[in-house]
């Protein structure tokens, strides 16, 4: 299985978070589109705000991920032993 378990776990948590936001937006649009007509900050409606937010949140989550995984870059470049240990300790678990 993949060598860097912790990266993968963080990735999946962030992925789930974004999936909920994106899914929430799509479902809201499909079943209760009136909510998007509500005026938000700066007299701009929620349709525009939620679209912009989804883009900005995607960037923020990706930066969070990059920051959390930052140590991994140096380790790999040096031919990490940690990655090796991870691989050994993982066994066959799904």
């Amino acid at each position: 299985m993949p060598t860097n378990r912790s990266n993968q776990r963080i990735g999946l948590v962030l992925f789930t978070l974004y999936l909920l936001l994106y899914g929430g937006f799509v479902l809201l649009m499909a079943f209760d589109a009136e909510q998007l007509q509500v005026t938000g900050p700066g007299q701009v409606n929620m349709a525009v705000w939620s679209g912009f937010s989804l883009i900005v949140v995607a960037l923020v989550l990706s930066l969070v991920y990059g920051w959390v995984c930052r140590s991994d870059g140096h380790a790999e470049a040096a031919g990490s032993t940690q990655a090796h240990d991870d691989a050994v300790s993982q066994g066959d678990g799904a």
Partner: protein
Amino acid sequence: MIYEASPIAVGCFFVFVGLTLGLSFFLGRKAKSSAGYFAAHGQIPWFVNGVAFAGDYLSAASFLGICGMIAFYGYDGFLYSIGYLAGWIVALFVVAEPMKRLGKFTFADALDARFGSKGIKLVAGISTLAVSIFYLIPQMVGAGVLVQPLLGFPHWVGVMLVGATVILIVVLAGMVSTTWVQFLKGSLLVVFSTILTVLILVRGFTAEEGGADGHAFRTLGPLTNTEPVRQAEALEKELASTWGLQGATITPAEGAWVDQPFVRIATGTDKGTTVWHLDKGEAGVFLRETQTLKKTADGQVLVNGMPKGTKKGEPELHPVGHVSRLPDGKDKTGSLGPLEFFSTLEESEVVLWGNKKLVHEDGSTTTVYFQKPTAGSRILQPGMHPRFQGIHSDKTLDKIDLLSLMLALFCGTASLPHILIRYYTVKDEASARKSTIVGIATIGFFYVLTLYLGLGAMTSGTLDVTNSNMSAPLLAFSIGEWLFAAISAIAFTTVLGTVSGLILASSGAVTHDLMANAMGMEMTDAQQVRVAKIASVVVGLVAIVLGVLFQELNVSYLVGWAFSVAASANLPSLVMCLFWSRTTRQGVIAAVVVGMTSSLAWILLSADTFSKVYGLDADQALVPFSQPGIVTIPLGFLTLVAVSLATQGTGPAPVAESPAEA
């Protein structure tokens, strides 16, 4: 509209192409081995690779298609921006690092890393080839659409020009030069889009009566006589007395004109006929001036009843796109802030354009383009484009169709072969991750700009009612000719870049997956590169032919097709290989085959294809809604799980996890 080749645009284009080719020659000298040809030796800096992701991804469909859709239908086009960007989250969090770790040159490498199976290489190679070719068609069609008005060449010349240039780029140097071309193009696109956005905000909105050529579109009403068929005579009198149309005669509706919301009125001594749109709204009944384009059976083109001209000043369709009313009855807003832009538009009224095609008995057709004054608050809401009708529909199937499209956009990105191969051009997993983050930042920023660009184009007064794909370049034209030249040239390189990435992905699939691995042909490294170059030329020629054949098809429609097939065929097996240890070789093969064929079959049997491709009645379609993703993506996963469970313990044990080089 009549487009005259602008010397600046032509000059700019050839300078761009010249620079691109020069760069390719220069960099191409270094790439002699297969690792260099397919993966640029894994030596591309992560930042460059990240911007190159943007170059690969922001295709003609993203740049021209989304801007055009927003310009014609408002917010709906922006839904594509949101969906396309969301797809990168799947790419970063799920696919990026394992792809880099497991593969060498192609998507099939990563899929097959645990199994060493020829079958997997075969189906994954075929699916790469299928998706790439489907994605190539809209790019080539887009190239032709661009060249026609900008340089004054016919459509097929544009397709040939782009095809030949791309083949040259790919054959010369493979991934190294392709990557640098993408980097260049990605940066230029973002920089110039930013400049355009700033200029749109500085310009603000102006209330007008028509487009940039000064033609004011007339609106008559509210009318007292509201039944032009039964009250023709009374209406003629009212038109003369109240609305100043002296001697107006209503032409009785016959043939294709019967039961249409259009009234043909002949006026003046020469009795020239103008077609008016009968608009029955809450505020009363209005007649609004339309524009017509008639194609006679013998190939003549008539614009508003007159033979279409060939030079400026002769009869042509008027450019459109104007704000008809600003808040508080203002004429001009002056420069606007980035939020003020939306709050002002929300309270304004914009004239959008609809169209209706009438087919006459003698084989001629008339397309009537009519005004649709639309409240700004409506424009900034989803649901105006026919494809997003599910939002305001009570039908469950329409809603499922909408969900299905948004799902395909979400899942499609991480399954596109030309995006996946870009993970092999960097040195390690950390670089793969970092370049994806740079890609998300660049692409996300651009997608935020698309809403400004699209709405700016909508109100620019320069739109061509017959061609939404031209909206972004025409927006630039409304600001200045130099900007128009730059944006057009960038749009060309956009097509060049994406097409070269796709051709490279296909040639990798043919050489590496199908010939070397699935068929077991023994090739030296140099032979592999030579075969790959021949494959590039063949795929390039196929793309040219398809680009000419499919020139009538809508670009974004074809892109949606490619996304659905990619997501259905590739994503289930990619994800399950990474996360489910009981996945078997047979499961992967079955999932790719079922995902690919079911999504393709669904599309071929859908209402969209029936009406747009076959020209049949949409009601005869054999599947309940047009977008396959919501059915075929889960079907891919189910197939993989079912077949894997059924084949546990059969065949050779999976090869221990190791990089493909081993």
